């Protein structure tokens, strides 16, 4: 059995650009903004980076194919630079590539960069992605919210919950993230909203209204990783190490057979089980200090609480309404605002989540600092609930 990544890789430095409608900045500027912060935090020179992974999801906007745009933006001459893309799990994929490179001993210091420039499309929401030539002939062109909104139909049907109760729980999810976003200086949306505003917002994809959908933002996040030994040798004391990095992909069973009931995301469950095993977590609700989950839409966050084993199946809507995942709840969720309010520049998101854990673990989270956190979990979902990829990374203080 594989020994896993736990405590083999330490975060040497991190950076994150301000997320939002960054009309004044292109991808290159966003990358540089996060990189300069990370490099200073790591306390190394650019020339010490041995390899880089570049996460960018949409090549119709942003910088196009390949990792060359990253090498060019940061002038990384002659080292291996690789582009990774796995839809909304792209940022976590960049971290995974860099962490595995360090963990394997291939390089001493590796760079993970995620960026997305979504506000160059000319319209709100995500660009329409390609589906490949075969799927394009039969698969409906549906928006991302309509893909995830189907969880609500499945969840309601399975647990026999009326529309209004679920809608209220979904509204609480967004209400909480908006409150958190106020205390998050780099977040895209930093304004509290009322439950009434959320409940009465225009419909995007039934039952999701505007406030059930995350921000479409520009932004970049960066991690520089190395081994704990090298980190210590470079003078780091409090080490944040990677405890788990796991990914699970659909093989088409959820969307192609009758096995899936539409009330959860099986990939998350598989990735979570593997990640908990890798990190040695047995009671996530007690052991996890904070979570950053893929709240692309409010319903996604709600079912993710069950998929991560934090709420019992069919009970997440009660826990949400009871405030279990609020900033002062048992398991603070999206303490930085989450995708909902910090924003969701796709390629950067997975790294942005780890950035928040990193700040919290090192006591650098300012106004929103949690009390003595030890372990943080990040969760990304790429694609749609019935056909996608779930990525989980867990980071914590090294004993």
């Amino acid at each position, binding site marked *: 059995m594989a020994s896993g990544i736990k405590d083999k890789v330490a975060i040497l430095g991190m950076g994150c650009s301000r997320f939002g409608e960054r009309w004044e900045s292109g991808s290159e500027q966003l990358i540089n903004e996060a990189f300069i912060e990370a490099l200073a935090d790591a306390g190394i020179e650019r020339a010490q980076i041995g390899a880089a992974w570049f996460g960018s999801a949409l090549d119709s906007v942003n910088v196009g194919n390949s990792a060359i745009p990253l090498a060019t933006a940061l002038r990384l001459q002659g080292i291996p630079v690789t582009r990774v893309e796995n839809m909304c799990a792209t940022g976590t994929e960049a971290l995974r590539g860099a962490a595995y490179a360090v963990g394997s001993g291939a390089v001493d210091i590796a760079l993970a960069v995620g960026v997305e420039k979504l506000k160059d499309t000319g319209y709100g929401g995500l660009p*329409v992605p390609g589906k490949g030539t075969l799927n394009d002939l039969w698969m409906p062109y549906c928006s991302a919210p309509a893909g995830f909104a189907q969880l609500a139909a499945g969840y309601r049907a399975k647990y026999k919950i009326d529309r209004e109760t679920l809608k209220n729980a979904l509204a609480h999810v967004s209400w909480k993230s908006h409150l958190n976003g106020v205390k998050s200086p780099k977040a895209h949306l930093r304004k509290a909203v009322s439950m009434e505003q959320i409940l009465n917002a225009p419909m995007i994809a039934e039952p999701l209204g505007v406030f059930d959908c995350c921000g479409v933002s520009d932004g970049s996040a960066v991690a520089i990783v190395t081994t704990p030994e090298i980190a210590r040798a470079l003078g780091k004391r409090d080490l944040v190490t990677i405890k788990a990095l796991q990914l699970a992909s659909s093989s088409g069973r959820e*969307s192609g057979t009758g096995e899936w009931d539409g009330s959860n995301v099986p990939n998350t469950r598989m990735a979570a089980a593997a990640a908990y095993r890798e990190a040695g977590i047995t009671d996530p609700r007690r052991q996890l200090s904070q979570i950053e989950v893929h709240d692309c839409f409010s319903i996604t966050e709600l079912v993710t609480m069950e998929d991560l084993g934090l709420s019992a199946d069919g009970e997440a809507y009660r826990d949400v309404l009871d405030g279990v995942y609020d900033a002062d709840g048992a398991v603070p969720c999206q303490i930085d605002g989450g995708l909902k309010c910090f924003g969701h520049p796709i390629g950067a998101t997975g790294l942005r989540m780890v950035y928040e854990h990193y700040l919290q673990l090192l006591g650098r989270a300012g106004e929103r600092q949690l009390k003595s956190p030890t372990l943080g979990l990040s969760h990304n979902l790429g694609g749609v609930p*019935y056909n996608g990829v779930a990525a989980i990374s867990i980071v914590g203080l090294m004993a």
Partner: protein
Amino acid sequence: MSRPQRGIVSYGAYIPKLRISRAAIADAHAWALPGLKSQAKGERALCSWDEDSITLAVAAARDCLRGNGRAVPTSLSLASTTAPFADLQNAVIVASALNLDHSVRCSDGSGSTRAGLSALAQALESSLDSDTLVLAADRRAAKPGSTQELQFGAGAAALQIGNGETIARYLGSESVSHLFVDHFRATGEKHDYYWEERWIRDEGVSKVVPAAIKRLLKRLELPADRVQWFGLAGAPGGSDKLVAKALGIAPERVIPDLQDRVGDCGTAHAPLLLINALENANPGDIILVAAFGQGCEVLAFEMGESRHRPAMGLSGAIAARIPETSYLKMASFEGEIDLDWGMRAEADVKAALTQHYRAADQINAFVGGRCSVCNTVQFPRLPNCVSCGASETQRPFAMADELGQIATYSADWLQFYLSPPLYVGLVQFDVGARLLMEIVEVGASGTTGGIDVGTRLAMQFRIKARDRKRHYSRYFWKAAPIR
């Protein structure tokens, strides 16, 4: 050697379910054309954005072919003046959707709204031993504010012609040609140009049609009072009764002209009148149908003993309706107004024709796969089974006639869609397959359209995407609630 007796061995019909009240159309134009109000009675059939002559024909053909106990037709003809392609055989698209064998002989007929009856006569006069499927379908376009906009409808008729026991035996036909230009539409143009109705009726229809019918009845040695069912298409309203009177056919024997609930269906209209008679006539009844247009086509039948009737038929198709009152929606569906759909509508939907051909049976005929190891039915058909993972074990499995239900769904207001919201969801087929599909014909009932998890669904062949850059429509199957 005498020829075997040919006749109609099966039939089917389809009328698009959307029906707009003519009052809604007239009201929209009342500011400029108050006179339309006097003609605004009843309702007319309206195609959704994803229906055209091909999809209408497929729906009628499926009604005709389903469970009729006949051998599969070896030839197929499609009559239409509104077929989407000028050079790409429309009948072949229909045949592929019906999953007919590649040996089927296909042909398109056009040029006049009488082409439906012309194709029927040709099939009935044929010396073939095997069956022919004659289809006629039109989605008629009319200029906003024209009387045609009120009168025109859309629909399709399917008639299977063969030997042996028939629903109606073919007696004979008469065809005459006159260059009487009551209306015309130049190639590439969208709308018809019509001359005065009174002239068409008095100088054209009233002189040409009775004369042709008289010749046919004389040849068949049938007195006019033997005709129990008489229908006339392609002529101004009321012409049928005038012609009947001139011939001595009692007015109650005139087949209802479908104007009150459907509208004029072009090439399909005369075949639909024939189907109306087939649904109501008794064995031994004589049926006479005529179509006017640069002369006329007249066909005579005698009702036979076959008791086969389709599941839907014309009466079922007329009854299955979704009321519509928005004229602007109709104008948009008809392409008469081009709404600003936003930048999302700019996404290129160019199809890879090479890929389309590789997956032709999957996309056109909705043939998925069944794993020969674990029997799981699945779509699309990929190299490895979705359930057991076995490699290269997929055997073709036709899914077009399989039923299913909604497993998950949403109503998508964000995605560019010509009839928002786009209803989309995972469809769970009773045979075990599951796939993400568009759900159409949902109707209007709050934000959810009255559908929910568990709503029963049947499959329909529809336009999947219209490539507006290259003017190419491509088709796939969509799910519709079973009403």
